[in-house]
C-alpha cells in the first residue's frame, strides 16, 4: 500500500489525535485540524490524497464542505465520518462527492479497508 497524505478534520481533538497516531504508525503523512474553517487554506497550501471529514461539527455543515473540497482540490478523495447513524446523511454525502462514509465510532478495520481502496486506485 502506498503511503498517503491525509488531512483529518474533526472538532474532537481526541479523535484527531488517535487517528493521527494510528495512521502515522502505518506510514501515512497525516495533518490534523479541529477547525473546519482552516480546511480551504490547508488544501491550497498542500496536496492531500485523502480528507477524513467529520460532518456534524458545530462550526460548519460538513456536507457543504464536501463540494467545496472537490472544487479546491479535485484529486483529493473524501471519507466522511458521521456520528449520526443516518442513511440519508450517507446518501447525501455520496451525492455531494464523498468517496466513502464511516460511522462513528470509527471501525479501524473499515478505515484501513477504505484507505486500501484509495491507495490501490479503486475509486479512481
Amino acid at each position, binding site marked *: 500500500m502506498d503511503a498517503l497524505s491525509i488531512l483529518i478534520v474533526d472538532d474532537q481533538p*481526541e479523535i484527531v489525535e*488517535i487517528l493521527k497516531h*494510528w495512521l502515522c*504508525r502505518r506510514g501515512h503523512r497525516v495533518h490534523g485540524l479541529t477547525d473546519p474553517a482552516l480546511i480551504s487554506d490547508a488544501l491550497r497550501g498542500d496536496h492531500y490524497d485523502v480528507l477524513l471529514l467529520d460532518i456534524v461539527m458545530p462550526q460548519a455543515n460538513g456536507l457543504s464542505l464536501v463540494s467545496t473540497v472537490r472544487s479546491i482540490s479535485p484529486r483529493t478523495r473524501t471519507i466522511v465520518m458521521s*456520528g449520526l*447513524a443516518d442513511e*440519508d446523511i450517507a446518501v447525501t454525502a455520496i451525492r455531494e462527492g464523498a468517496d466513502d462514509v464511516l460511522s462513528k*465510532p470509527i471501525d479501524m478495520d473499515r478505515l484501513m479497508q477504505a484507505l486500501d481502496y484509495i491507495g490501490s486506485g479503486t475509486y479512481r
Partner: protein
Amino acid sequence: MMNSITKKFGLVLMVFTLAGIAALGSFSRLYVRQNEARQSRASARAMMTFAREFNAYVNLIGTEQEKHQASVLDGVQSFESEIQAMKNGGRVGDRDVPAETGEARQVLLEIEQLWPGLKAGLQFIASKPSGAPESAGAILHLRTTSPQITDALKRIMVINAKTREKLQRESTAVLALILLLDAGMILSCLWLAKRRIVAPLVAMETAARRIQAGDFSHRISLNSNDEIGTLAGALNNMSASIQTLLVEKTESAQALAASESRYHLLFDSNPHSLWVYDVETLHFLTVNDATVKLYGYSREEFLGMTIRDICPPKDLGRFSGYLAKESRGFEQSATWPQLKKDGSIIEVEIAPHDVSFGGKRAQLVLVTDVTEKKSLEAQLLRAQRMESIGTLAAGIAHDLNNVLSPIVMAIRLLKEAFPGEKEKMMLATVERSAKRGADLVRQVLTFARGIKGERVAVQFQHVIREVKQIADETFPKTINITTDVAVDLASISGDPTQLHQVLMNLCVTARDAMPDGGALRIAVSNVLLGEDYARTHIDARSGAYVLIQISDSGVGMPANVIDRIFEPFFTTKEFGKGTGLGLSTTLAIVKSHGGFINVYSDYGHGTKFNVYLPVSSTAKPANSQSEQRLPRGRGEYILLIDDEASVRDITTATLEAHGYRVLPANNGAEGIARYAQNKDEIKAVIVDMAMPVMDGPTTIASLRKKNPELPIIATSGLIEDSRLEALESSGAIKAFLPKPCGAEQILTTVRNVLNTVLILT
C-alpha cells in the same frame, strides 16, 4: 218585555175571562129573574088557591059555611097581602115577592079593581049567619066576580109561564156561550202553548241533544223575543261560547302540543345524552335517544333503573354526592366514569341541573361522552412525550457517541502498544463494553430518527413461519405457540429483516410476560380501517391494513405501564436484564412502515399487541429510482369506468403519466357507449364494481358480449366481494385491483394483463 209569552197568555186569558164574566153576569141576572118569576108564580098559585077557596066557600051552605068562616077571613087577609106584594113588591111569609111588571101588572090591576067587591061580599057573607037571605045578593055577585079573578089569575100564570120559558131559553144560551168561551180559551191556550212553548222546547231539546253529542255549531232558529226566544238565544250563545272556548282550547292544545313536540325534539334528538332522574328515589324518569345509544340500555330498561346502575360501584358514593349538591348550571361539569350495559366503562362529563318533573324533585343531567376525547388526549400526550424523549435521547446519544468514539478507536492503538496477554484481555473487556455502549447509542439514534430500510413486497406468511420456528426452538416448552394467518393475506411493502425483528421483539415480550408458561398466539389478517377509526386513533389513516395480533395469557400490565412501554429505556425487567429499547425499536420500525401499534392489556390476564401495517395506499411514495422501474405503457387505450371522480382522475393521471391513453366513463352505460365507439383501439378495461346506472357485473357481462377476449380488470373497495369470486372463477375478469391502490399496483396489473394477452395472441 213587549211581547212576552206571559202577556200573550195573559191577553188571551183576560179576553176570555172578561167575556166569561160578562156571560156569568147575564147568567146571574137571568137566574135572579127566573127566581122572581118563580116567586111570582108561587104568589099567583097561592092567590088561585085562595080564589078557589072563596068559590067553594060561597057555594057552601049551612054549618059548612060557618065552619070555614074564620079561614076565609084569614084567606081574605092573605089574598090582599099577596096583591099588595105583587103590586109593590114585598115579603109574604117566607117568600120575597117581586113587583109585577108589564102585562102581568095590568092583569093584577084588573084583579085589584075586582077585589074590593069580592072582599066586601065575603066579609058580608061571613058576618051573616049561614043561609041568611040577605047574603043571596052577595053570593050572586061573588059567583060572577070570583071566576073573573080566577080567570085573571090564570092569565097571570100564563104570562108568568111564558116569562119563565123565555128566561129558561136565555139561560141555556148564556150557558152555551160560557161553554163556548171556555172551549175557545182552552184551545187558544193550547195553540199558543204549542206554537210558543212546545215547538221551541222541541227545538231546544234537539239543540241540547246536539250539544250533548258535542256539536256546538248547531243554532236554534227562533224569531221570537219572548222568554223562550230569550232562552233559545241564551242556549245559542252558550253553544257559541262553548264552541269558541273549544276552538281556543283546541288551538291552545295544538300550540301546546307543537311546543311540546318541539321540546321533545330538542330533548330526544339532542346529540348529547340527557336524562332526568328522581332526586329522592334516584330512579330514571326519562332518557333521550343519545342516552340509549351511549349506555346501551333500552328506554324501557332505563325506566326500571336507578342512577346506581350506571355508576361503577367504587365511585357510587362520590357520584351521588356530586349530583346531590346544590343546584348548578350546565356550565359546571365534572368528569365521571360510567358503566355501560355491556360492562365497559366510559368517561363522561356530567352537568346536572335541578328541575321539577311531573311534580317530583328531579335533576336534568347533561352527559357528554369524552372517552374518545380523553383517549385522543392521552394518545397525543404519549406521542408528545415520545417525541420529547426521542429528542432528548438523540441529544444524549450524540454526545455519548462522541465520548465513546475516542475510547473505541484508541483501544486498537493500545492493543498494538500492549501485546501482552493480560493487557490484551483487559483491553478486549474495555472494547466490548465500549462497543456495547456504542451499539446502544446507535439504537437510540435509530429510534429517535426513525429507521430506514429497504422496501420490498413482504409476504407475511414467510416471516411468521420463521419467527414461529425460532420461538418453538428457543422458548420454554410451557408456552404453547399458535399461529393463524389469513389465506388471502395482502402483501405489504417493507423491510423483511426489520419486520422479522418486530415480530421477534413482540414474541419475546410475550414470553417474558409468561414466566410460568401459557398461550402465545400470532394472528395475521386483512382489515379495512374506516374514517371513524382514523379519527379516534391519531396514528391511523383510513384504508387497507395487514393486522398482526400477538396475544399472550401472561401477567398483563397496569395502565401506567402500558402508557410507557414504548419509551426508550423503559423496562419493568430487573436492572441489567433488558435495555428497554426492544419495544421502542419495534415501534420505530412499525412507524417507519407507516403503521402503528395498539396495546390492550388486562392486568393479570394477558396482553395483546395489535400491529397495523398499511397495505399500499399509505406506503412510502415511490422515489425516482423506483418510479423508473414501474412498467410503462406503449400508447394503449384503456377504458376506465368509475363513478368516483377523484378515483377516475388519479387513475387517469397515473396511467397517462406512464404511457397509456385513457378513455374515462362515469358509469357502466357510458362505458359501454365509449367502448362501442372505440372498439378497435381499446386494449383493456378497468371497471368499478359498485356504480349507479349500471353496476360492475352488468357492465362486465355487456362488454364480454361485445368482445369475449377483452381484458377486464375489476376494482372494488370491498376486499371480500362475493361477486368478484364468481367473476374471477368464470374468467370474466383478468385481474382485481383492491381500492385504494397505489400507482405501482395499477401499472403492474395493467401491464401484466396486457402482457398475458400478448402472449396468448
